[in-house]
């Protein structure tokens, strides 16, 4: 039997309380807002590439602990990565939270494995993946996305492509 309390472990509670990279960026090359209409939660993700690598990334929004910790740990994991490496991590995170990743085989998940338990909570999977969904949208210059855009999260590319929003100040 899944112990849901196990999900609320120290590292997740810590990132919820003290989110890393929380806020907005003065200059960003990519930006998107993600919504979870089931609970009304929303977060925005902004990032900037320095040549091939993501040199800064920030998020902010209203969300539950699972979503906020996921966003915070995502920004930590993504910073400094190339877009290709970040895309691999997005795929692995989505696979893990939907129970489709074998954590025993080689992967890049690292500390993000604390979210593995969320796959036992189907109603909370969307909380954990919203930041990743939003990051993916930002990469693809989709200004706004939703967890309901593709309920199975199998192909999160089917978004209407719109130009990135101008950066607003906090």
């Amino acid at each position, binding site marked *: 039997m899944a112990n*849901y*309390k196990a999900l*609320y472990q120290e590292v997740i509670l810590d990132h919820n309380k003290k989110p890393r990279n929380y806020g907005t960026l003065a200059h960003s090359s990519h930006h998107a807002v993600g919504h979870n209409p089931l609970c*009304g939660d929303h977060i925005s993700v902004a990032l900037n590439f320095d040549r091939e690598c993501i040199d800064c990334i920030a998020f902010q929004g*209203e969300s*539950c*602990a699972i979503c906020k910790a996921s966003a915070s740990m995502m920004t930590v994991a993504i910073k400094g990565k190339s877009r290709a490496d970040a895309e691999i991590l997005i795929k692995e995170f989505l696979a893990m939270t939907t129970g489709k990743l074998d954590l025993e085989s080689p992967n890049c998940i690292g500390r993000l494995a604390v979210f593995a338990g969320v796959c036992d909570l189907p109603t909370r999977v969307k909380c954990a993946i919203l930041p990743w969904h939003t990051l993916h949208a930002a990469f693809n210059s989709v200004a706004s996305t939703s967890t309901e855009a593709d309920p199975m999260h199998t192909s999160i590319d089917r978004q209407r492509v719109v130009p990135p929003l101008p950066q607003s100040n906090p």
Partner: protein
Amino acid sequence: MNAVHTAVNPCSSSAFDVERIRADFPILQLTINGKPLVYLDNAASSQMPQPVIDRLVRYQASEHANINRAVYTLSEIATTEYEAARRKLQCFINAPEEREVIFTSGTTDAINLVMHGYGRKFIKVGDEIILTTLEHHSNIVPWQMLAEETGAKIRVVPINDAGELLIDEYENLFNEHTKLVGVMHVSNALGTINPVKQMIAFAHSHGVPVLVDGAQAVPHLQVDVQDLDCDFYAFSGHKLCGPTGIGVLYGKAALLEKMQPFKGGGDMILSVTFEKTTYNTIPHKFEAGTPPIAAAIGLGAAVDYLLAIGMDAIAAHELDLLNYATEQMAGMSGVRIIGTAKNKASVISFTVDGVHPHDVGTLLNQDGVALRTGHHCAQPVMQRFKVPATSRASFAFYNTLAEVDALIAGIRSVQKVFA
């Protein structure tokens, strides 16, 4: 906590034996995550007692056939039982006539019936529909669709900080363009019991009919549509210990007869040629196709069950639960009750400081406590209180004071995790 529980427990008398009632509900014997199920999401859907389950089984096992068509015995039995259920629902809400009780698939379907049958026929460009901030999306969206289609306008009655309608503002919204009022009897999100009788009398003084969304009222209150004098009253079976997929629209016969059908098909006609179709009389005009026969008969059995306990006894027990839970929560630091109307049904919406409702819900589930978290299909209410969502405990007559204690203990443990 147990001492308090014993001291305030007025329900141990023989008049209302909650443990005997609980024994009728198989699902209440379940354990969830190793803990006894504490089911506090009754405003979303209530549980079904064994006599209703038995009635559904008996119907399917020995009475089922399509109704209103054939001359053989089974079809006659099914038709008789379906119509008997209609009479039970008629008595339950004290409707003057059987034909004023239309079976629908639920409250949403019933409201959509009024929108299509009444609204599309009688509401035109420039007309106004009065709704309230408290409404469930099911009593907002159909009217927005109508407004978009016809060019009618929606006017909204505001609420105060307690979650009560501002009746002066309501009365000020009336003018010569007002064509319909839609108001919920009891708020699903906050529990507020609205003064619908007074509101209906005022609307009638302006010649305006009133649709009451009674989904949250019928499980808790003795509803008398003649006393209210409402023109339409909609409710669902599954919040009333009945099956899903069944509900009722009560409408005054004179209005129902003027309305156009909502759905076309079999059973709602007297004769059909390709040149002209003559519609059936009410209620059949609004019951196109094979209805949910088993569900209607099951709802009839649910109403029998509730009436055997007594709606007054149900209301009294639920009020004890509400008062006890309110008192306990009011004493907890970091817990804010949203919706503090003087007149409330057994619903408590609340927030826990620093904890998102979905985290509250997931952690309480670990303790076997089932409650609703989210916007409760009432986003305008959430916006009014400037919260994205709340946690909501909603009590039924089969809940106990010990279950309130389990809820309170669960909230304390959530606060500990997030401390």
